């Protein structure tokens, strides 16, 4: 719906990809691991590959959690913006469909956080 205003009301999005100096935003959520209070907001290069993303961004972000050491990477169930997703090893994030402000969620069956509380 349009904003009711005294004149025509249009606006520019504040977070367009061109404002990020060649980088883009990517959100990562690890299901059932609320030790991290909210999904991560990461700044990533659209040209990096998925293994690079895993090694340089996701792994360090989740490292404080004891479950992170037990993850079998190939068994992670990924979703990209709510749809099942198979990360391909060699192509860039952008080619994989991971565009600006995408949200990747990872479920790790068998690893559901600590204390039976999704922590």
């Amino acid at each position, binding site marked *: *719906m*349009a*904003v*009711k*205003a*005294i004149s025509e*009301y*249009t*606006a*520019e*999005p*504040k*977070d*367009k990809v061109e*404002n*990020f*100096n060649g*980088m883009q*935003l990517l*959100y990562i*959520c690890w*299901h*059932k691991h*609320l*030790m*991290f*209070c*909210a*999904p*991560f*907001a*990461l*700044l990533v290069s659209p040209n990096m590959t998925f293994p690079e993303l895993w090694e340089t961004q996701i792994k*360090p*972000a989740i490292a*404080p959690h004891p479950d992170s050491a037990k993850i079998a990477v190939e068994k992670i169930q990924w979703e990209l*913006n*709510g749809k099942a997703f198979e990360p391909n090893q060699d192509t860039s994030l952008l080619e994989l469909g991971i565009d*600006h*402000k*995408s*949200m990747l969620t990872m479920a790790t069956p068998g690893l559901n*956080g*600590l*204390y039976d*509380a*999704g*922590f």
Partner: protein
Amino acid sequence: MTATKKLNLKQKYQYLTRDMDWEPSYQKKSDIFPQEDFEGIKIVDWDGWEDPFRLTMDAYWKYQAEKEKKLYAIFDAFAQNNGHQNISDGRYVNSLKLFLSGVSPLEYAAFQGYAKVGRQFSGAGARVACQMQAIDELRHSQTQQHAMSHYNKHFNGLHDAPLMHDRVWFLSVPKSFFDDARSAGPFEFLTAISFSFEYVLTNLLFVPFMSGAAYNGDMATVTFGFSAQSDEARHMTLGLEIIKFLLEQHEDNVPIVQKWIDKWFWRGFRLLSLVSMMMDYMLPNKVMSWQEAWEVYYEQSGGALFKDLERYGIRPPKYQDVANAAKEHISHQLWSTFYQYGQATNFHTWIPKKEELDWLAEKYPNSFDKYYRPRFEHWDALQKKGERFYNPTLPQLCQVCQVPVLFTETDDPTAFSHRDTVYKEERYHFCSEACCEIFDNEPEKYIQAWLPVHQIYQGNCGGPDLPSVLSDYYHFNLGEDNLDFSGSPDEKRWNEIKGIKPLDKDDVA
């Protein structure tokens, strides 16, 4: 009206709000009050505006001046007697830091808001009421800062509250709340602030802070609270009058007002999540739990209110049930968030002491021991090993309320209630269905949101690293204002005041 020699109050009010007004003769009314129509609100008769207090300017000056005189006498006495030494615990001051940087600037924003809309109504009664409330809000902002300024001499983190309000990541939550209201039309502003905030929710802000101050020996802040109480009562009554006035003027106003109530109830509820954590975690002497406060001040009072408004065709706010169910969770989720981002706050955070954890378990029998106690015990164990947990990444923020996406689904406290939507090929993320709906109703407004995390990544907040953002852009004194209370200069100073020797490491909460 025929003037007698000495006017009574009612006559004075009549003069001020009706007889001093006039019908324009050579300008169109719509040119003089250009913002009165665009929201779709129809006012048939401005004389229907009843100000229950009928306050006139001279009476206003007189009351407020007397109150102010007493207030500042107590501030002086508080400072001369080193009143800060009599508070319950050094940790208490952190709730003042949150208040000073989060709430006092909102009083100032409210002043600006009322001053602005006080120009926009063609009804003189409404203009006068808004102008007086504008002056109240300005006074509250000033007196709050004066009440707390004494603490700035003795504790860290209080030195630059207005700048922090404009820049610090979590303070964009209160700031954007008022920006949203102030950039709306005048009738939406009144529904947002006078009704939804002042009438429906303000007890949840003021009672915890002012009773919290009383329970924790903070006489300066308590005295401010007393001084503001009569103003708040006036604002609340006005809030209710405004909503009834709008609803009585025209039936077409009902769906518009309902939509605003739905929106601003939720916006206020999200804002108050900061208060929930203050009540349950930051007050060393607890007043009541957030859940109890919510039950008394929203479920009971709000229930009666919306029953009363039913005859106008108004129903309770759309997402009220979600808010009610969340009362067992939000304070714990908020404190977990601030604890793990305690490197990036202008106040200290800590693990609650054992008796505090027990109090929380007693107050939250359904949620605390199952979901939240384990996390605090986990972090406590790490802290005792010297590995205090700080989250090294930045969080995803809600595009509307700007709180990190930390809230959980009503039926599953282990799953975030994240939502997203695509508008003009750009994706947006939200903490909840309700915030997503607010966005969908006015996307052009919220795509402009100044989200602190994204601004940091765009390079607009200094840097390149996080410590330089915190020190250079937020004006934090690193190692003094931020991090855990345990080991902080504040703690050291408090222990010196009280003659407490540093505790054995194992006893440190």
